[in-house]
């Protein structure tokens, strides 16, 4: 051990400790002056503020922890919606970028260049304050397909009313578990005897038959509740029944998915282009059909390139969903780091909880990605 190795490390450590010490010392003094004691006890106190959109039951009499959960669930909701649509649009545009049709190729390129060079916040504002404000009032709305109502107050869609919903869910879970077993069995059978089992048709059949059986014998019953217009006052109308998606959610999900889709499209394009031509030719020359080439040779290799950056984009989407605070969609940042912080004044505790939530989310995903990358990496000798 020589001094040249230890000295710089000790110096850095010292600086870090000094900075942290300085900060925490000041924080202590500041909090003493303001008469606040550090602690997370406030989480169980009554929150006494309302949130306009929540997935779980919530009102002012619930605790701050419940408010945190409401915000977290709303964040997850908009992220999941955004991820689904971003993936669909991104894959379609990415494939269109690869098309040899000049018009399709250019259209996709224009879309990608345009949407990814404009700040996401601007896009959210555009959809919320400009585009969705041009929608009609509830009383003037023409229904889409007779059941969907797109109004300035939100998107009203029909809801399912279930009897014995749990039986239905159990039947689906049972179908999925049996499909997994059948897959394992089919793989083993192919390895041992070389006989292929039509797994795909069997699994589709199972997924259809079991829920239908639950309808026939399990007492499951579903009916559709269509939103109906209702007059509140002289000029105020609204819809009753069905599910209401607030305009904040729509514009946020729209902007997030359109923005992230451009990045996913580029990932998809890079992935498919990354598979060398020789692979396809080699696969064709050993007599695989074009479908088999795509399924067994191209896609596994392309996915290896596509999935890591795409997961990164999903993570970015989830983090970007915090921009919801700008248009008052009640997500984690707005509900917890906004309203709850204003009410309690506990800046350190609340901001740290919010940051830790996002941090644990992204670190767990990056740990999973590292594991996945190691698993799918090409094992070279």
């Amino acid at each position: 051990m020589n001094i040249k190795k230890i000295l710089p490390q000790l110096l850095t450590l010292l600086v870090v400790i000094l900075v942290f010490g300085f900060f925490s010392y000041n924080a202590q003094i500041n909090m003493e002056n303001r008469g606040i004691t550090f602690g997370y006890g406030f989480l169980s106190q009554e929150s006494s503020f309302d949130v306009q959109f929540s997935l779980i039951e919530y009102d002012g009499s619930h605790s701050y922890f419940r408010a945190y959960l409401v915000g977290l669930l709303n964040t997850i909701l908009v992220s999941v919606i955004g991820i689904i649509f971003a993936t669909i649009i991104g894959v379609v545009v990415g494939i269109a970028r690869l098309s040899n049709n000049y018009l399709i190729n250019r259209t996709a390129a224009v879309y990608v260049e345009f949407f990814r060079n404009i700040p996401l916040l601007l896009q959210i504002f555009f959809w919320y304050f400009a585009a969705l404000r041009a929608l009609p009032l509830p009383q003037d709305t023409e229904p889409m397909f007779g059941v969907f109502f797109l109004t300035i107050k939100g998107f009203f869609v029909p809801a399912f009313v279930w009897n014995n919903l749990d039986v239905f869910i159990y039947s689906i879970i049972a179908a999925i578990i049996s499909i997994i077993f059948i897959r394992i069995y089919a793989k083993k059978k192919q390895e041992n005897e070389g006989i292929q089992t039509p797994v795909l048709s069997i699994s589709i059949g199972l997924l259809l038959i079991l829920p239908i059986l639950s309808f026939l014998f399990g007492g499951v019953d579903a009916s559709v509740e269509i939103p109906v217009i209702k007059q509140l006052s002289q000029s105020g109308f609204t819809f009753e029944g069905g599910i209401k998606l607030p305009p904040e959610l729509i514009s946020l999900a729209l902007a997030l998915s359109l923005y992230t889709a451009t990045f996913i499209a580029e990932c998809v394009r890079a992935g498919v282009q990354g598979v060398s031509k020789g692979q396809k030719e080699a696969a064709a020359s050993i007599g695989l059909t074009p479908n088999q080439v795509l399924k067994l040779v191209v896609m596994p290799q392309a996915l290896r390139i596509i999935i890591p950056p795409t997961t990164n984009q999903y993570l970015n989407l989830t983090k970007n969903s915090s921009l919801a605070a700008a248009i008052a969609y009640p997500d984690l940042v707005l509900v917890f780091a906004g309203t709850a912080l204003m009410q309690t004044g506990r800046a350190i505790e609340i901001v740290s909880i919010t940051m830790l939530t996002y941090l644990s989310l992204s670190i767990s995903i990056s740990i999973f990605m590292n594991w996945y990358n190691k698993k799918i990496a090409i094992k070279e000798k």
Partner: protein
Amino acid sequence: MNKLNFLQPDKNNFYTYLYTGVILVALSIFIVFLNSFFNKDIVSFLPGPISFFLPLILGFIGLHLIRIDYSGLRFLDSINKNINTNNFNAFLSLLIVFVVIKSLPPLLSWFIIDANIAGDSKDVCTGSGACWTYIKIWFNRFMYGMYPNPEQWRINLSFIALAFLGCVGFFATEKFKKYLTLYYVVVYPIIAFFFIFFFISGGPIFFDFSYGIIAAVISIILGFFIPSKFKMYYFIIVPITLYILLKYVFFYEELIELGKLEALEWVETGAWGGLSLTFIVSFFCLIFCFPIGLFLSLGRRSDFPIIKYISIGMIEFWRGVPLITVLFMSSVMFPMFLPEDMFIDKLVRVIIAISLFEAAYVAEVIRGGLQALPRGQYDAAKSLGMGYWKMHILVILPQALKLVIPGIANTFLALVKDTPLIFVVGLLEIVGMLNLAKTNPEWLGFAMEGYVFASVLFFIICYAMSKYSYNLEQKYKTER
């Protein structure tokens, strides 16, 4: 004459197929064109669904007929190859063409034909199109925020001066080329900082700035007559001496006088805004985040465990949280960490926060470049007896940074696109100003124009940046 088979066009009866096909395609486009530009439906005698799909059907058949391989006509071949390879492609091409033709008239009428730009109040905006008058009236605010009008020349002058100083690299002769890196990394940021900090914010502190500029100019002029042997010492000693002489000897009496009046009005950072603030914030964050990121990436690959884990912790922390929470932290949590009498300006706090945040991303990008270098480079440098710093500065970093130009450019683009988020702490750059203008009771209802305007501005800036980075990448590309 061969038999005509319209299901399989071939080269025998070539011109029959060609003319029929071209006429059909032209007819279909003509129908859509008339329909969208002149609002005339010439096929309205047909039943509804058929008249709606008729152009598509006609065009589809037409494209099918002209799909003849190796026709010998170059134009036809290129059409067939590019937009008409098979039925599916032909269908999609037709759809795209029709959608473009259909959407042109409303777009044109909104942007140009029915739009208003004359006049200077809301009353002139009677057309159904855009109201560009709104942008014209508010243009000043969108560019400079709440910065007082008579003082705006200061922002213009600073930006023009900085742009000129930034172009020095293009005019430098061979002799000075080797100093360019030093100039851009050290001298230029300092000059820029002085310009923005002293000149744009103004106040009595401005005199220090002008003395500094005078001292620098005099010493540079004198510098040409100094033998190069002493230049190093000269440029350290003379400007500082001159500055001190100017401030405390020559103008000391006047300074006391002048200190009472204010040469340049003090403009607090809260009043800065608009596009100029976007530029200021992204410029400073860009300057600061690069060196921080560089050190973090070197730290992450260091052999010293403590430095390594501190760097990893820093990088993963900043990368794991959304920027908006970082800004929340800088606005509500950070003041708690400072002594009570210490106050850091809002803008400075924001710049520090964004710089640290983006530095983590820059660090990861640079680490990618460092990892991509073969071990041989390190070994070769070490075998020449180079130490850690010499090895990195002379051998490793020049190659690694060259490799990661696209990644760094992407990070910088992300930074520019992230600047609107500073609305969280109440600073209004261009998007914030738009939201403010939108709620002005005299100008309600013009949100669309504002957002379109800002989108076009940002698109131009970001697109130019990405094209420039692409050029840089091509310029520094070396075959390995």
